[in-house]
């Protein structure tokens, strides 16, 4: 959710029960402003909160002018001091894929797990158990990246692509209509398209290149990993991810208020197929 409309966004997203205490809200309003100035971001998003056993991570993201350019991720434990996280790499994802369980809330905490590694010694290959240590900060980076790639989203039309390439915020976006808001196809993954290239020409025929340049949620796997609800009568549409429980997206139809927030344990719901 945009840091500038933080209070309104929190109010709209409060249906899931995850809010922020008044002191956190106040400190976020102050500190994110400074983050925006210091890091020279075009836009700062309050991304959410990862609940740890001891403490919580508050995550914010900075956007440059091109909205789809890689986002910079910052985290904070007290909502005042922010630290920049390194961009996620393949190696990190691989490393942290072995780690499960809850976050601790301490970036320097080290998870240990044993791994079998092939060691070649004197022409003989044998396997050896190696204890691999993963720092929680690394795990945080990869989890935020995974969540971002899997469930960060924007409504259709909120961003537009200029002919020269960069993507901008669409200032003429006036919200989805009610019937559109009820369809999963009106929401896009907030990342560079990956599935769009695999579509046939026939499927792409109706797409508007300046608006439909991202993947739609409609084809997400597994099917049914989103819960769409109309709340407050029909005045608010709320999407909750079932794959990453804790992610709440909200959009008030006919207004430009939209955003998403993640408040959860940072664990993927791999039991989803059993639960539907």
């Amino acid at each position: 959710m945009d840091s500038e409309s933080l209070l309104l966004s929190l109010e709209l997203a409060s249906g899931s029960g995850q809010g922020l205490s008044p002191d956190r809200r106040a400190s976020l309003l102050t500190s994110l402003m400074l983050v925006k100035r210091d890091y020279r971001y075009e836009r700062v998003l309050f991304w959410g909160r990862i609940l740890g056993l001891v403490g919580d991570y508050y995550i914010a993201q900075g956007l440059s002018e091109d909205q789809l350019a890689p986002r910079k991720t910052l985290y904070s434990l007290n909502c005042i001091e922010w630290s920049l996280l390194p961009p996620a790499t393949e190696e990190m994802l691989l490393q942290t894929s072995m780690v499960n369980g809850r976050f601790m809330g301490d970036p320097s905490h080290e998870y240990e797990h044993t791994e079998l590694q092939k060691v070649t010694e004197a022409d003989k290959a044998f396997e050896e158990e190696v204890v691999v240590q993963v720092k929680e900060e690394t795990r945080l980076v990869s989890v935020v990246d995974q969540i971002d790639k899997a469930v960060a989203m924007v409504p259709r039309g909120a961003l537009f692509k200029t002919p020269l390439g960069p993507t901008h915020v669409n200032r003429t976006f006036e919200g989805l209509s009610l019937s559109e808001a009820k369809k999963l196809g009106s929401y896009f993954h907030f990342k560079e398209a990956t599935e769009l290239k695999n579509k046939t020409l026939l499927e792409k025929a109706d797409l508007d290149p300046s608006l439909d340049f991202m993947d739609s949620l409609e084809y997400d796997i597994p099917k049914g990993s989103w819960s769409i609800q109309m709340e407050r009568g029909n005045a608010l549409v709320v999407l909750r991810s079932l794959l990453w429980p804790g992610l709440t997206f909200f959009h008030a139809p006919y207004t430009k208020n939209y955003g998403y927030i993640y408040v959860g344990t940072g664990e993927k719901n791999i039991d989803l197929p059993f639960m539907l």
Partner: protein
Amino acid sequence: MEASTILNQEEESQEPGEAGQPWEEMAAASSRDQEPKLPEPMESEPGPETEPQPRSSLPGSPRSRASTPAGDLTTFGASLPGASPQDPLPSPPLELPKLDLVPPWPSDKLTSAIPDAETTRSDHVEHTTDDEESTPHPTSQLEGNALQQSQQSKPHLPQPGHVTSNHSQQKELRVGLFLEEDWGSNEDPDQVEPEVSEAAPNMLEIAVQNAKAYLLQTSSKSSLNLYDHLSDMLTKVLDERPENAVEIIESISQDVKKAHFSKKLDTLQNENEMLPAYELAEKQKALFLQGNLEEADQDLEDEIAENCLPNVMESAFYFEQAGVCLGTDATYRIFLALKQLTDTHPIHKCRFWGKILGLEMNYLVAEVEFREGEDEEEGEEEDVADEKANGESEVDEDEEDELPKPFYKAPQAVPKEESRTGANKYVYFVCSEPGRPWIKLPSVTPVQIVVARKIKKFFTGRLDAPVISYPPFPGNESNYLRAQIARISAGTHVSPLGFYQFGEEEGEEEEEVEGGRESFEENPDFEGIPVIDLVESLSNWVHHVQHILPQGRCNWFNPVQKSEEEEEEEDEEKEEEKAEEHDYIEQEVGPPLLTPISEDLEIRNVPPWTTRLSSNLIPQYAIAVLRSNLWPGAYAFSNGKKFENIYIGWGHKYSPDNYTPPAPPPVYEEYPSGPEITEMDDPSVEEEQSFRAAQAAAVLEAEQDEETEDEDEDD
């Protein structure tokens, strides 16, 4: 439009019959004559029906309906000559309709007709204005006109050669006709009718019909007809009474035509999209209005005195400090909804339990305790359920088919806990949105809790949705929801140590040693625990909801005691032995009530609770916040003296491992396995030979033995 006029026509056509004899005769005569030629003889009548309308607006027109036909008749009689000149061959009057129906020069006719109409109309208007001044003697004038017309029309009809020369006369006649119409109100039908009927022979009738039929032709372009158009125009003029009607008659005509283009309602219409929003707002408005209904102060005082409504807003304030909130206005609506619930039910105690998220809708859950003796309905329900169960078993026994019966004997069902005890201590109401009706959840059975522990399903938000799972869940979503609520309550409802104390009923204590004491009461001497202690030590928090045993009950139920009767029937000792073994099954014991939560078990190194201060910035006014790691979404707060629990989440327990559905039970044996039915290897040739040799040897021996025996016997 057409349908309605036809209807009216019919009415009209009936009325004249009743009203005026002469008309009826004529109509009969004309219809007889016309039937073969005119497809729609009735069409002649809509004219009178539409035209009379303007008359009613005329000053001083208390014209009875019965007089209509008379006036109309004269109209027809008079308008006949007007029509006939336009027809090229009027001499064989019987063929007129044909020609009219197939108009040879429609454009000509139209143009010729319209000027006529205009002129007549303008005349008519002038006349009407005159009339207003000269109302005292309208009848005489009229009669004169009528006579004139009839006289003139007579000679013209059979003589087509006079058509053109008659044109001027027509106009006059028409004027006369319109005048007549307008003054029809004042005229005495009896005076006019005889004259007309005398004057108008069948030919005239037919001509009238033809003229009208022509005027009533519907244009294929605009689907209008001149007759209706003219009458509409006249209506408009007479209604509005413009100053310069003659000058603006063209634009009036245009306006009348334009009026037909008004948008017709399409069958495909936009859905009224915001409807649910209005509906909900309407319902919530009722919530806000409920306070106004109670007007008397006395009631108000009583209400305040016997208050069972919790202060939801206060709790919400504290929970907001903890970072858990549903939004202030949403909470207030929930507050009002709870008030509605307590007003409509005999509730002793009420609490906002929390919110369970669903796929389609969410559940707001209220935990209530009924007043003593007010929850009898439930007891009845239970009885019914029990009866049902009994009935089913009886049916099973009655079945006398010879199907093989399975050896499997279902373990005896553990009975449900009485209401007000154990897992059924409270009653729960749910609703999807504040303002919608509260629905009471059924009480929970031990089986449901046991199965609910084994499954993990999302709630849909519809209470009647089936729960499709393995192992099969006994009941629908409302039962599953109730079971999860019971589990969550048992796991996460905590209070500061000392807030509750056991009731001092020592007599009962001994009886309840098994399951631990059930009842507790608020400690009046509770002095509060410093917040910092609450944060630092989990032993300052205690569970105040009973632990649910693996059996699915809070108080252990010994399944063996009840099954003794059955065992008596089966006299086999083995069974008894087994039963004895059962007896030694360990009694399931859970932690007693008001056990500190520091004794809760860890789940794979995950501590079950996380405590912290709500704010590190101003710790002196902060509150203690407790977050359950076992049931993500369960929170508790305490400011030392007050405490509250809430749950907002999906209703699932946390598990570090993946969910795996339990394996199906092992397959039962169909029959006991023994050597006679086990498959063996075929013997080899050598084996067979050796077997034969052995057999032969045996036979030999036997024979020898016999022989020897025989010998012995012989001996």
